[in-house]
């Protein structure tokens, strides 16, 4: 089993202070206010049922779910501050802990720069295999990722082909975002074959389910399908907010982090209701909208601050974080 590099809160670790306690209290209390009075839009009826079971106020016509502070508090009580990500080989397991950091490649791109020709072209299943094998061989990367989408296979089965290529080429833990219920079921079946049965897979989950809210404040079906399937399988879940400041979230840094925090708390309520104590990553790939070009500007100082803010808020809640960088 591997552990991350010690960072903040260890003697000798370098630490950056992003917020005061009061700042984080403001973001937390603002989140409770927004979730209680405005709520989130939840697309899937199955997820609406689960939110209702969890004690939320659900409007089935508008698909708005309003969440009381006590429900958020309850979800936060059951969340795990540390958990293990399992690789195909147990020696490659990674312990995720507060104050330690591990690294993963990007995921998921649609194009690849061909290593031989330099050509920028659509990615294929072979590219998934190559990228995953390369990351498996780089020892500074504790985690792997199906970093590109295979576009030479049937689109509805792209993630299953991706999963197949990934299992073949790495023994490290990895994350993948599936397209819906059918995808999740078939992927779980594939993982059970690799793990040696459904029970073995429950004990050592080989899949990490990834989902992205749509800012502002929308939990789409693709996200809730992934999270429900993941939580039922006791598998780690990575919820990656993707706000675009000035477009889908307020232009201010704090307002954007506020929207993100609302999406995270709503997702956490769902996941912890389906399986109390289920491993959960407070994740972010939030960026700014470039007002000159209308593009999503990722390599910016704002993104650096969003990631620092994400790490700080996740620490505030005692939840491991998943941030973007490099």
């Amino acid at each position, binding site marked *: 089993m591997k552990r991350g590099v010690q960072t903040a809160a260890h003697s000798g670790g*370098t630490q*950056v202070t*992003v*917020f005061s306690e*009061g*700042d984080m209290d*403001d*973001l937390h209390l*603002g989140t409770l*206010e*927004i979730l209680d*009075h*405005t*709520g*989130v*839009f939840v697309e899937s009826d199955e997820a609406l049922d689960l939110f209702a079971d969890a004690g939320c106020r659900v409007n089935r016509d508008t698909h*708005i779910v309003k969440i009381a502070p006590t429900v958020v508090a309850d979800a936060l009580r059951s969340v795990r501050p540390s958990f293990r990500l399992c690789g195909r080989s147990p020696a490659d397991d990674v312990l995720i802990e507060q104050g330690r950091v591990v690294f993963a490649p990007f995921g998921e791109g649609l194009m690849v720069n061909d290593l031989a020709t330099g050509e*920028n072209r659509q990615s294929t299943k072979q590219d998934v295999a190559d990228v995953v094998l390369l990351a498996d061989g780089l020892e500074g990367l504790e985690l792997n990722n199906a970093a590109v989408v295979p576009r030479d296979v049937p689109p509805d089965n792209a993630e299953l082909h991706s999963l197949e290529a990934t299992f073949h080429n790495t023994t490290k833990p990895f994350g993948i975002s599936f397209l819906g219920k059918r995808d999740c079921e078939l992927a779980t079946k594939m993982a059970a074959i690799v793990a040696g049965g459904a029970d073995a897979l429950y004990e050592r989950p080989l899949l990490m389910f990834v989902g992205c809210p*749509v800012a*502002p*404040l*929308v939990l789409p079906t693709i996200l809730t399908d992934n999270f429900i399937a993941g939580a039922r399988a006791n598998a780690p879940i990575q919820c990656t907010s993707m706000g675009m*400041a*000035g*477009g*889908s*979230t*307020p*232009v*201010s*840094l*704090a*307002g954007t*982090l*506020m*929207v993100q925090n*609302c999406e995270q708390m709503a997702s956490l309520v769902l996941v912890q209701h389906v399986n109390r104590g289920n491993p959960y990553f407070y994740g972010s790939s939030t960026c*700014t909208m*470039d*007002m*000159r*070009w209308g*593009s999503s*500007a990722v*390599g*910016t*100082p*704002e993104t*650096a*601050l969003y990631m*620092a*803010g994400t790490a700080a808020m996740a620490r505030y809640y005692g939840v491991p974080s998943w941030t973007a960088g490099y």
Partner: protein
Amino acid sequence: MMALLAGASVIFGPGMLESGITFDLGQLVVDHELIAMTKYCRSGIAVNDATTAIEEIISAGPASHFLENASTLTGMRNLSTTKLIDRQVRESWEAAGSPEFYESAKQEARRILREHHAAPLADDVAREMRAVVAAADREVGVFD
């Protein structure tokens, strides 16, 4: 970045390559662009009634946008901008001739050298200073 966050008073080094053997004018312009980004990070995340935007988020609600908010119009002036790093999508970047960051930086270095002028020294100051250097050169056997 780490020195800046640790509170260093001066950070030098922009333009340097090969552990200080070579100075590169294009690299100086590249580093200058990165300095702007690190300075932006240093200003941190302001948390107050205006920036947390609770009422705006509540009135916008789920599945909306913030493009038409007055705060977006005023706040966009505080967003980071780049001079040379190209934030366009690939198609627009290619249409613009696929400018590489380092190449753009060298062009910018040439432009600045062409167009920028430091305030001139007064003629008599320049003359007196020249005389000192000329005298020093004569002392070591150089005559102009």
